[in-house]
């Protein structure tokens, strides 16, 4: 058995073939080959070359770049239906949500199915203004508006479902309500709280 190096990898040549491995897999592979060597090789065995897959080291930065790219690609796929200015603003929010300093290695990244539901809402009801986005601990996309003591927030679930929550001030009374609805039903269930006032005038509402 001989071991040689090719770039950052090791090539182990032995009786039945060659194995190419990275440094991290070297000792395991050698142990494996030595234990194989104690068994008589089957007569049918042919000389083969195996290239052991060496996964790319996933740093926090690469994970963040990859999820940013995945979310922006999801937007790109439907970009012909979105206002370019709104899309540019959304891209900035996606970048801001993924500042490396705000993330730990073990944090759960944005759930792409949740983001798809968010996009479907925008495609179905139009570009909403003043929207403020977030990501919860489970990776779900959050969207919210706030105006004084009133607020509206959405948590986007897979398969076009939305968990919504509203705090509505009516004169001196404050009402709150929450629920889970399909995107199709959302306008109907929010109707008592006049949701269009949030979306349409939202440029005048400071985002969170």
């Amino acid at each position, binding site marked *: 058995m001989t071991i040689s190096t090719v770039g950052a990898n090791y090539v182990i040549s032995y009786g039945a073939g060659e194995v190419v491995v990275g440094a991290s897999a070297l000792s395991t592979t050698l142990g494996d080959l030595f234990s194989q060597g104690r068994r008589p090789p089957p*007569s049918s065995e042919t000389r083969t070359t195996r290239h052991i897959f060496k996964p*790319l080291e996933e740093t926090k930065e690469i994970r963040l770049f990859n999820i940013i790219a995945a979310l922006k690609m999801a937007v790109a796929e439907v970009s012909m239906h979105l206002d370019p200015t709104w899309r540019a603003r959304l891209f900035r929010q996606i970048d801001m949500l993924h500042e490396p300093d705000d993330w730990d290695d073990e944090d759960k990244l944005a759930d792409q199915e949740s983001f798809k539901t968010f996009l479907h809402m925008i495609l*179905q009801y139009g570009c909403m203004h003043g929207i403020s986005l977030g990501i919860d601990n489970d990776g779900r996309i959050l969207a919210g508006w706030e105006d004084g003591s009133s607020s509206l927030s959405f948590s986007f679930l897979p398969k076009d479902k939305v968990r919504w929550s509203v705090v509505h001030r009516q004169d001196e009374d404050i009402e709150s309500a929450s629920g889970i609805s399909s995107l199709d039903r959302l306008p109907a269930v929010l109707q008592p709280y006049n949701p269009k006032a949030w979306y349409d005038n939202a440029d005048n509402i400071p985002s969170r």
Partner: protein
Amino acid sequence: MGARMDSPTESELSFSRPPIVEAVVERRFATSIGMDVVESLRRQFEPGYPAISQLAEMSVTVNPIGAQPQVSHNMTGYRLTDRNASAVILISTNGIVFSRLAPYPGWREFSEGAAAVFQTARETMKYSTLSRIGVRYINRIDIPVRIADAKVVPIQLEDYLLIYPTFPASVLPPAQGYTMQCITFLPNIECRATIGVATVPPAVPHHLSIVFDIDLGREVQVPQREDEISEVLDMIRSEKNRIFVSCLTDKAKELFQ
């Protein structure tokens, strides 16, 4: 409707909402390059294309005389995406692909982006004989679904696309989805054309989405010099435009305005 043979004008191709989901230029190598060259290319492109994933292929060798099957999981290259997810480079041992995602910026910007990538690649890997150059445009037509009397109004695909499957209504009920591929050789540009039409899951709620995929590639007399490659790509582009315009109805084109 007779097929047109001339290239469409710029105004015929000017849409405020072009349906292009992805535009691709591929250069395929005659002989595979080494993974060390692929790694060099990755390092070269990485600063501008920081999102990286690996391309891999898995093969299983089954020995009929009783030995254990051998499974190998080989890395073949990388997929690199730029910061705005507007451009993607695929580097593999078999070739390099430059891809521009929607919104499509027009041929000029797209081809300049591709040329810059291939220039960098050539400087890094030196000369490698090409066995294919190709251009692919993946279009998606999102057709709104109408409801009348609480029922979905059936969409007639031929109202939008002139490539569609037909079959006797007495044999099958209306299709819920389909996939079709036409492969032909275009002698005027010496390219193989692969035209794909397929229904896909709706990209937009309450729409029907159809992919119209045009892939043209030169596999004979493949140009090797940059000026010749550019010339052939222009011819391919012109032919792609002709196919695109000829296969869509006015009703489909209205959806892109």
